[in-house]
């Protein structure tokens, strides 16, 4: 049982058609297993995380309300979430036998996702604390301490994280890689779809590269695209799990 399904093109090439569809179920089941295991762990096994004492802060100098995320960041989050849900539903419902004009909804949602991520990159780079989402030396040192304490070995208390815990940072990194891969491969897929965007005419214009090259681009993109969307399915279920299960006590002192 292969992970990719292959076929032979009229040009004699072996081309990947798409990932094996059973991987959709693997991704879904992995997501559900994660949800159950995580819920059991949080409910029965997780201990309150202890942190080293914070340096003294003059509370009087702090404003009464400190917004965790700006309005722009929250808008980006929900637009991206809506786009990803539309992408997932329009990608997988046809595979389950639901007939509708899914390609139109899919490319529109993909375009919204790409634009929202482009906005996020600009916004996060120039208007937010860019490095706050990337793991740093303190995260790694504290992760080592937490791991040693989890294993029952002596270690000092980890520091309380700033805006994002290490898990969030790593999760963001994986979602970023998957999201960018889906967008990049999706752009190649757009070459074969008639839309108001000029992608297909660009494909026709660049056909002088050779039909085999173009076919290979699109074929490999589809294989990659279907693979990454299965990863997104798994990660979306993880995100929902985090959102639905109140695991703040793992992080709060």
């Amino acid at each position, binding site marked *: 049982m292969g992970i990719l399904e292959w076929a032979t*093109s*009229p040009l004699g090439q072996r*081309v990947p058609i798409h990932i094996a569809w059973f991987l959709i179920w693997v991704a879904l089941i992995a997501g559900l297993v994660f949800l159950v295991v995580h819920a059991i762990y949080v409910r029965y096994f997780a201990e309150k995380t202890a942190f080293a004492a914070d340096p003294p802060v003059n509370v009087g100098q702090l404003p009464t309300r400190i917004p965790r995320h700006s309005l722009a960041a929250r808008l980006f989050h929900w637009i991206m979430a809506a786009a990803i849900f539309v992408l997932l539903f329009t990608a997988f419902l046809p595979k389950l036998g639901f007939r509708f004009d899914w*390609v139109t909804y899919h490319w529109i949602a993909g375009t919204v996702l790409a634009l929202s991520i482009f906005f996020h990159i600009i916004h996060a780079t120039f208007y937010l604390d860019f490095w706050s989402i990337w793991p740093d030396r303190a995260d790694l040192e504290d992760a080592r301490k937490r791991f040693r304490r989890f294993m029952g070995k002596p270690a000092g208390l980890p520091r309380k994280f700033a805006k994002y815990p290490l898990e969030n940072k790593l999760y963001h990194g994986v979602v970023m890689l998957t999201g960018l891969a889906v967008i990049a491969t999706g752009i190649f897929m757009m070459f*074969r779809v008639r839309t108001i965007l000029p992608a297909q005419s660009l494909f026709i214009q660049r056909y002088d590269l050779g039909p085999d090259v173009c*076919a290979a681009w699109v074929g490999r993109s*589809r294989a990659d695209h279907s693979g990454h969307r299965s990863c997104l399915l798994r990660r979306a279920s993880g995100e929902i799990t985090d959102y639905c299960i109140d695991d703040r006590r793992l992080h709060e002192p």
Partner: protein
Amino acid sequence: MAVIRDVMPAFHLYQPTSAADAQKLLEQNGTDALALAGGLDSFDWLKDRIRKPKAVIDLGGVRELKGIRTSDDGVEIGAMTTLTEVAQHPVIREKYSLLAQAAELVASPQIRNQGTLGGNVSQDARCWYYRAGWPCYRAGGNICYADTPVGRNREHAILHADRCVAVNPSDTAPALIALDAKFLILTSKGRQAVDAEDYFIGPDLDITHMNILQPGDLLTAIRIPANWASAEFYFEKVRDRNVWDFPLMNVASAMKLSGCTIQNMRLAVNAVAARPLRLKLVEDSVRGKVREAATGEAAGRLAVEGAVPLQFNAYKIPLMRNLVKRAISGVQEAAWAS
């Protein structure tokens, strides 16, 4: 690939004698089953060894699927009725001559003797990339080989293409749409009647199928109501070889006139998209107008709005414009004023 045109792959052959048994067998075998009517489409797939069904359900022994039953409400034609029987039936020739004309123009006499009405409307696309077994979108792959600058696409779609640019090749389908026919389908949930135009689907809804039949569904009959009996009909098929060929395009219309004014009309074309198209906007635009060249010309222009030609089929746009004009204003008005 399509290199062995001789020995068919092995399969279990079932020869039911009732529609219920046939439907049950189709349901039991699901996607591994192939329903065999006249065999003119199916045997190509089998002999090319591109389709390898585990079970072939031969409908030739199901008597209730054959024959033409007439009543005051119209006519019901069994799905296994041959095209010759349809074309020669006296009631159909008298009251529904649009269908008789369409059936008579299908392929050759030998094929019409063997081919069935149900098979003709349910046949698969004839795009040669697809028929040759290449992994195109319609075959579950990821590319359309016809929709490229070097693809052979002279016969392909100008309307409603969505990744796949293959067209529906049926001659009887547009006639049945124009006659407001209902397709009767036997499913695991019971009998179902669908409008002719809803029987066909394009690649936007399902890129690997050309009609709504799901595994386990059986087309049993086609019912034509009496509403359009003896109306003013027009059918024209354009093809490369007039003795025997698939359509480059065909048009079918049924019209009710009050003097020279068009009271009501149904109009359909095929071989321009992956499904036969009923041109509702055109029907609405000519209703209440005088049947003349100017009306036909305006309708022809409206019909091709949104058409996108491929590299080698731009001729289909003026062809469709002219066929629609002729269907409305008649052949004698065919010359364009401008």
